[in-house]
């Protein structure tokens, strides 16, 4: 199995989730992160002093799928998350050696819902 982790713009989460559901990927875990890359942060000004906020809010979405789904998932995410502007994010694929469903103890493919 592979884990696909997508760093996306937060307001795209709903679209990406729907796109994944459409191709029958229904399990995923999401967290709020801050990213640094080409997209610039912003400057805040408080009482005359400037502060740079170097990180921009991003959402990280991770889903573990069977190997044969990887390409479809990547395509779905690209389609749903892309705006064409800098900062759209990245997708990373890593290997997962084992998956266990806590409730049942099922392993691997069976454990993916």
């Amino acid at each position, binding site marked *: 199995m592979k884990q696909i982790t997508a760093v996306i713009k937060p307001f795209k989460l709903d679209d990406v989730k729907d796109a994944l559901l459409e191709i029958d990927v229904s399990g995923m875990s999401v967290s709020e992160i*801050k990213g640094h890359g080409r997209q610039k942060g*912003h*400057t*805040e*000004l*408080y009482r005359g002093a400037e*502060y740079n*906020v170097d*990180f921009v809010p991003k959402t990280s979405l991770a889903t573990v799928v069977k190997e044969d789904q990887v390409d479809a998932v990547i395509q779905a995410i690209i389609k749903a998350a892309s705006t064409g502007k800098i900062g759209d994010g990245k997708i990373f694929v890593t290997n997962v050696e084992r998956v266990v469903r806590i409730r049942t103890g099922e392993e691997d493919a069976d454990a993916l819902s």
Partner: protein
Amino acid sequence: MDVFFLTLGAAMVLAMHAGFAFLEVGTVRKKNQVNALIRVITDFGFSTIAYFFVGFAVAYDINFFAPVAELNVLAGGEHGYKMVHFFFLLTFAAAIPAIISGGITERVRFWPNVVATVVLVGLIYPFFEGMIWNGNYGFQAWLGASFGASFHDFAGSVVVHAMGGFLALGAVLTLGPRLERYSKTGAVNAILPSNIPFLALGSWVLCVGWFGFNVMSAGTAEAASGLVAMNSLLAMVGGLIAALIAGKNDPGFVHNGALAGLVAVCAGSDIMHPVGALFVGVVAGAVFVWGFTFMQNKLKIDDVLGVVPLHCVCGAWGGIAAGIFGTTALGGAGGVTFMAQLVGTLTGVGIAVVGGFVVYRAIKAMLGIRLSEEDEHMGADLAIHQISAYPEEDMQTH
């Protein structure tokens, strides 16, 4: 003595502006909280300037440009009663932009909004205020002659609330809905409030301050009436219970329902029977809930806090209800007629609707009234004030 009386009234209504601010802060998204706060206090500032230099003279033909020695504040004079009366009435006048603020928030530009505030508080509001509360232009006399009584609006259901609410209608329609509020297919999208406790805090401050608004409208300590206090209380309670039930326990509805009752009771609080006031409040609370839902979901008017159903609808209902429940037939103190109330209310509504559209369309044409898409997306806080509401959290290091 009366200076003391009105000072407290003014302080209480001044506090209501903090209430407006927090009601708005709690309802908008986090990225617009700072802007809500600054807009409310700035509006209050410019309202004071406009009403001091222009508005009060428009309404009551009084100004304060003479040296202190001639202003009746020294020993032997009346201790500057007129000045504190100015202060008290200013806090009403400044409620106009505060009411509108809740409708246009999250997308309005900063300085054009200030311009609108100055025009409304300096000219349009005092024009109608003077007509009703100072007998200007013979309107009240004409009503009295035509319908057997002049228009009775004790504490401003129409003069302040319907006026503010219908001015807001023009503003809201001129601005249009927030980005993504309604999708192209017509679906209503979730734009959720950020902070219910702040919303509730704002509502509480408004409720408490309202007793200054209503009771101190008597003008002198001697004239203060327990009936006004009791009617305000019962209408508030009626409003909140009705909104609780009609609104299915929703916190936004309950806390605004209390205000709906208070808006509606202003006009006739000095003449209605308490049971009548309770009834007026119940209707206001329920109507607010239905009006809000109808406007947002059917008419697709994106009035963020619901100031139109709250202030116009309940305000107009209050103006008319004074002509029903204020009559002796229904146990009230009398001295009002239904027709005078109806005509008075409609006149106010007419002025406000026209005034609102003219002012906001003009500002839109001349200055632009709406934030750029990019700024709206980023939030008014960063776009206008270069800071967010919780700056420490924005910096990663702690």
